[in-house]
């Protein structure tokens, strides 16, 4: 078996391939976007088709404050990414914690809203089409927030105990991409549920 002089390899162009983590996270985001799209389509399709029960206009209040919290958390996580890339671990922990806090605030807001809707407005998932599609869509998003927060809490614990360093910047960016996705989904859900739907 002779070996062949491979002329093409003589050029010293580095062989660069995309990173696995980013490709995988992008794929996951693609799949999740597809799931959310179906729930959004169901929500939009059923607007106005209820035969009874509360309607969006009657019971929904626009959650401006909590939306601001969630969307600004994207800014803070970006600050955290920036910090770890520049090896500023304390700054990283600070911005990371703020991100988590903002996410928790958002979840708290969702919880308050659901409490009001189910107890005061008697809107549950089984009340009518609006109830079913609303709780499913917002709940699906909230579950993604929960997963993101869990991962971020683990990361924070590892960071505080010294297990996370600048060499893990790439993994942090991958997780941050997930969090940016969650925020982007909220922009869509917010528009569909609180703007278009009302």
């Amino acid at each position: 078996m002779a070996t062949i002089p491979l002329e093409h390899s003589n050029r010293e162009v580095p062989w660069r391939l995309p990173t696995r983590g980013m490709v995988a996270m992008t794929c996951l985001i693609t799949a999740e976007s597809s799931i959310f799209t179906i729930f959004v389509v169901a929500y939009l399709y059923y607007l106005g088709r209820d035969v009874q029960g509360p309607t969006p206009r009657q019971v929904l209040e626009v959650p401006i404050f909590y939306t601001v919290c969630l969307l600004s958390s994207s800014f803070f996580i970006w600050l955290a990414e920036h910090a770890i890339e520049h090896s500023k671990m304390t700054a990283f922990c600070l911005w990371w914690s703020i991100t988590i806090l903002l996410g928790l605030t958002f979840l708290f807001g969702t919880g308050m809203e659901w409490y009001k809707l189910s107890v005061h407005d008697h809107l549950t998932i089984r009340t009518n089409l609006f109830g079913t599609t609303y709780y499913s869509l917002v709940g699906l998003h909230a579950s993604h927030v929960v997963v993101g927060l869990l991962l971020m809490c683990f990361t924070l614990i590892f960071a505080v105990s010294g297990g996370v360093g600048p060499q893990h910047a790439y993994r942090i960016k991958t997780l941050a991409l997930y969090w940016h996705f969650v925020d982007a989904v909220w922009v869509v859900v917010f528009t569909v549920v609180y703007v278009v739907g009302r």
Partner: protein
Amino acid sequence: MGGESIPVGRGIEVGVERPARPTYLEVVHSWIVTVDHKKLGILYICNGLIFLLVAGVEAMMMRIQLFFPNNTFLSPFTYNRMFTMHGTTMVFLVGMPLLFGFGNYLVPLMIGARDMAFPRLNAFSFWISAFAGLLLYYSFIGGVGLSGTGSAPDVAWFAYAPLSERAFSPGHTVDYWTVSLLLSGIGSIGTAINILATVFCMRCKGMTLGKIPLLPWLYATLSFLILVAVSPLTACQMMLMVDRYLGGHFFDTQAGGSAILWAHFFWIFGHPEVYVLVLPAFAAANEIIPVFSRKAIFGYPAMVAASVGIGFISLGVWAHHMFTIGMTSFGNAFFTLSTMLVSIPTGIKTFNWLATMWGGKIRFELPMLFSIAFLFQWVIAGLTGIMLSVSAWNWQLHNSYFVVAHFHYVLVGAIVFMIFASFYYWYPKMTGRMLDDRLGKLHFWLMVIGFHMTFDVMHFPGLLGMPRQIYTYEPDRGWTLLNQIVTVGALIQAVAILIFVYNLVHSFFRGEEAGPDPWDAWTLEWATSSPPPAYNFAIDPEVASRRPLWDLKHPEDPDSAFE
């Protein structure tokens, strides 16, 4: 598994390992905890084969029931479970595992990688899929169900709402269907992510995307389809669960819900899914036909564009399963056009295969025999597909045996035939042994005869008005003799497949030694021993063309001079 490697590019391999014989328990343990893509590939393939036999039994039960009109071999309760399970099993527990099995095994080898991008995710995906299969089949014994005939799903493989809602399926049949497919879907999405990450991020040096073999290209395309299309199934199963368990109303027509929404969501999944199933058949044809015609694939860039194009177009044709559901004439026209458009890249691929064979030196070995049958049958399947895309004609053909004949022509005539071809082609690589040629030829001819006896004839009851998914039929419709011929053909195919399974087992112990490259092929997997060592390549290969081994074997006429 130790072995030698053949040098590729720069580098000489000297390592030869011969470990001590492991104990039985150690072997079983190594298979259970493995993260090696080759072992997982074989596990997927075995999983798929076992369920192929089970679903085949379900098919034979149905064919026996349909042998006579008003037959009493199966009750309607049992029959309805048979066709639901047959369809669900074949798509999710046979088709997907087999395609993932071959993909897992071959993609890293073909791109010169050591393993998939995420070996542990790979193992997780396999085991969750395997568990999903067990859960689905547990339904047969998990309780007597409402009619005393068990809780296996009985709402057809597409589980149309509101039949699948609690109001009309109060037992647990739909629950088994929903949960096991949800789990299987998670496994599929995991493997799709893995394949995409592998193809994009793990290629060996010199292997630009324009130089990867067509099989990884098609697997990347189908993985993208899985990401975008299996997710809608996951979504509508979640919605069905909300309806069934939490009292939701997604598909509750009493509360204003919509049955048509389920149909849309399901087929947004369902149509790309069948392209996910067929793209591996194309992938295998892309590898096998050139090797046995002794010519490079004709029009590689067009093949890539056509395959990716098929993937994208397939996302926009789903409502051709719904021409009778009451869409507007504009909607029907749109989906007629989009469906017909798929035939253009498909035609390109078919003609490119013919052009590959043109001017070649065709060797009629078993992989090629199955590929030739595939080509012929694929053309017919595509043409009956065109007939079905004509929405007005579809109003007669929909939900009749014509449709059943069409999709079995694709699933069996194209996909299963290419699965057989893949087996004959790559089994030597996986096991180091050749499959027996005489048994193989017997398998081939019996399959061809049985397949055509069944599925050519099956078109006619459809044209004569026989709907599908019926456990019996009236004697005075003129369907009886046709059904009987179909059943006999099914029996012949069953015999063929049993011969094949025997061949697989027998050749594992007694087959002729294969060597690293029994077919004189050109892609990187043939540059390893048979079976390959755990690490695949001792030194990362470096390639300069689409056919690295051709370059090695024909230094006077390397592809790299042309590409």
